């Protein structure tokens, strides 16, 4: 109206489509280039592995090259060995993760709500946690049998702690104003928990779950090292004894893939659950 300038942009064009699209900005790369880079890095890693094995002349007995491992992986899958044992281990991982995460969250929620419970209980939690699972695994086998149950429980005890520790800190990280808001409206402890503390704890809980899911892979394997008749951990022992390094690495690759997929799943869920915060997004704002 009082402007001395004219616009160089034709009026009336659609504006909605220009609404910011964050991802491209986030990385500074187009999705296509990004994918290319990821593949390039993968190729580089594999090449470096092959090169290291060749150049350093590492014995294939302990550190086989990628080709041998891929061959072993193929053989293991073709023979049905890996798939058979995979299901056992996957079940242990998922069941153990679920049980441990739930226990960690529930106990964490209790301790997070009460300083008294913390003073009284936390030392025992830490004590229980510092006991090496390998040392007490036989006890678990004793109590819960040779089947998958004992492995599920060993896994759960490992997953438990990161979820617990993060839940406690997370529940306490809620800002004072929001707690005050709840108190002003006569909220009970449960309301404060559900409406304020829990949402604030969620990024922590999911970070704990992320740590937990990775530990659960290790947990199931360690559980299988003691008294298992099936599972990938059992297969590792077997192949270690028969000095099949490539075969063992093939299983480690399978474990890694399980870990990567489960990790991605946790992040995927986190992103959807914690839609209001940026903690699990791909850094939608530059810095």
């Amino acid at each position, binding site marked *: 109206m009082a402007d001395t300038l004219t616009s160089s942009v034709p009026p009336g064009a659609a504006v909605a489509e220009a609404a910011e699209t964050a991802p491209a900005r986030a990385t500074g790369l187009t999705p296509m280039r990004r994918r290319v880079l990821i593949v390039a890095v993968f190729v580089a890693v594999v090449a470096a592995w092959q090169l290291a094995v060749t150049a350093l002349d590492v014995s294939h007995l302990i550190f086989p090259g990628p080709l041998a491992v891929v061959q072993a992986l193929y053989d293991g899958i073709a023979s049905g060995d890996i798939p058979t044992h995979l299901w056992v281990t996957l079940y242990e991982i998922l069941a153990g993760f679920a049980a441990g995460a739930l226990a960690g969250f529930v106990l964490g929620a209790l301790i997070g709500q009460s300083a008294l419970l913390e003073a009284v209980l936390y030392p025992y939690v830490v004590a229980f946690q510092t006991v090496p699972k390998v040392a007490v695994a036989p006890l678990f086998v004793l109590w819960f049998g040779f089947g998958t149950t004992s492995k599920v429980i060993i896994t759960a005890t490992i997953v438990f702690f990161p979820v617990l520790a993060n839940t406690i800190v997370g529940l306490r990280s809620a800002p004072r*104003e*929001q707690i*005050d*808001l*709840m*108190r*002003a*409206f*006569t*909220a*009970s402890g449960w*309301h404060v928990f559900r*409406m*304020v503390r829990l*949402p604030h704890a969620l990024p922590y809980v999911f970070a704990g779950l992320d740590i937990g899911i990775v530990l659960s892979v290790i947990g199931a394997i360690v559980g299988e090292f003691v008294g298992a008749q099936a599972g990938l951990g059992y297969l590792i022992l077997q192949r270690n004894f028969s000095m099949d390094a490539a075969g063992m690495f093939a299983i480690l690759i399978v474990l890694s893939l399980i870990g990567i997929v489960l990790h991605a799943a946790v992040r995927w869920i986190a992103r959807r659950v*914690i*839609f*209001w*915060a940026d903690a699990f997004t791909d850094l939608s704002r530059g810095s």
Partner: protein
Amino acid sequence: MSATLAPEAPPAFRFGGLHKTFRSKDGGDVVALHDVHFSVRRGEFVTVVGPSGCGKSTLLRILAGLERASRGQVELGGRPHAGSSRDVGVVFQSPVLLPWRNILDNVLVPAEIQGRDRAAARERARHYLQLVGLSGFETKYPSELSGGMQQRVGIARALVNDPLLLLMDEPFGALDAMTRETMNTELLKLRERTGATIMLVTHSIPEAVFLGDRVIVMSPRPGRVTQVVEVDLPSPRTLDLINTERFGTYVSGIRANLHASGGLD
């Protein structure tokens, strides 16, 4: 323990010799409130004015059960005040919305906490959102609202349970003149309808006079009540009152007390 001069009606709330001292992280003590006395009748509308940092919010937070007095008495409905009460609605100085709840659900927070009937609460929430001019924003999230819009959500939230005591800390601070005037009028209507006792902190002296049955004037460091002005203006109050001489007299009287020289507000 008791008043030597009994007030006509049992007070809605009462401060007796109230002191509040904050211990600061840098070691020093800050006296936020010093020997504050006053009581407020049921159904009364009191407004509080005073310079920034004089203890207005602290006073309100003590009444809301969010701070404890260092010394002295606070009574609510004739009983020693302990914690918060279901009949109190609070508007905070900053909006304090929950980012994971949409606007409607934010307004419903107090109703949910107090387990009120859901359908009726939603009805009221929509009503008050309309009142504050936010119809159509029910499903938006707080981060998608402007500062003033967020503040209005906070107002609707305080009203949703139809509280008997309404505590408002600069509720219209981020609002433009027009919206503010609408809000003022609506607030007076609300008081008329529900008979609620209202304490409203503002930094606008005209607003304090326009709304208040009494205006509490405070001075800073340490925060004290320096003046309590009974506003004797006709009721129901309308906006043309503002141009009357009596209104002007009240405003300039308080302004003088606050040592303010001119008047932009």
